[in-house]
């Protein structure tokens, strides 16, 4: 993991949380959308908060695509889970929604689960031909410890990513 890759993951996290918050704020202003009045969607997109939210989510999308080009899907999603905490903070302090202690605990569990995943290797997927067919205990052990595998995956991607990097 390089600094640049950490920045990409941070971008995925921050843009997603900020974009969702702005969408929520905008949608509360425009009111409920009904299936029978779909023109409400167009009105919603004209709301400045929704528009800025969409721009932020586009930035999220670009960073997300970038991350998926060099890391597993099951790595990128959890590694960017700090967004849940950002969302809860935004909901409390910016949107003034009430976040109950149970929800805070849920958010903590989610973030904990995700931090767990972030300690593993970023990339495990192999193309069909080079993927090992056998699931020997040794291979599984190596994978858990993030040791370099014998299948030619660059060493850099096997370094445990964020055991200390993602604040918990």
């Amino acid at each position: 993991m390089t600094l640049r890759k950490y920045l990409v993951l941070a971008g995925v996290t921050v843009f997603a949380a900020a974009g969702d918050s702005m969408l929520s704020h905008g949608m509360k202003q425009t009111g409920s959308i009904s299936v029978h009045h779909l023109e409400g969607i167009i009105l919603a997109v004209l709301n400045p908060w929704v528009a800025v939210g969409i721009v932020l989510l586009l930035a999220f999308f670009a960073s997300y695509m970038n991350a998926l080009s060099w890391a597993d899907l099951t790595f990128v999603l959890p590694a960017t889970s700090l967004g849940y905490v950002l969302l809860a903070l935004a909901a409390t302090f910016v949107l003034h929604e009430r976040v109950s202690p149970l929800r805070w605990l849920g958010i903590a569990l989610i973030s904990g689960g995700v931090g767990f995943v972030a300690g593993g290797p970023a990339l495990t997927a192999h193309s069909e031909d080079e993927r090992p067919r056998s699931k020997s205990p040794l291979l599984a052990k190596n994978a858990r410890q993030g040791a370099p595998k014998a299948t030619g995956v660059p060493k850099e991607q096997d370094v445990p990513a964020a055991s200390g990097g993602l604040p918990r």
Partner: protein
Amino acid sequence: MKSAYTWGGILVIVFASVIGDVLLARAMKQVGDVHEFWRRAGLWVVVSRVLGNPNFFLGVTAMAVAFFGLLFALSWGDVSLVAPAAASLTFIGNAFAAQIFLHEKVDRRRWIAAVLVAGGVALLAA
């Protein structure tokens, strides 16, 4: 009734997101590491190669369905419920889908994380 709408919206988001995530991840693996590629060939080659990938377009379509599902659900429920619940259930669905369709090695570490996330989602809904 409103919460039934909210959870219905969340389910739509989850299914569309899992399909979209898997297709997009496959597309980007086919394109390759964009950092390397960008350095060698320049930004526009990278962009055109991403946009020219069929899986990318199918993935974006699925994501668009998920996005409008999100717009609906956010107008019915709180962002601190809808966004984490949808994203976390998507995470669990993705753990299954990535193992089956992307051949990612979803080991014990990643499954424990999935269980923790599921517990977190249950608490969010409480």
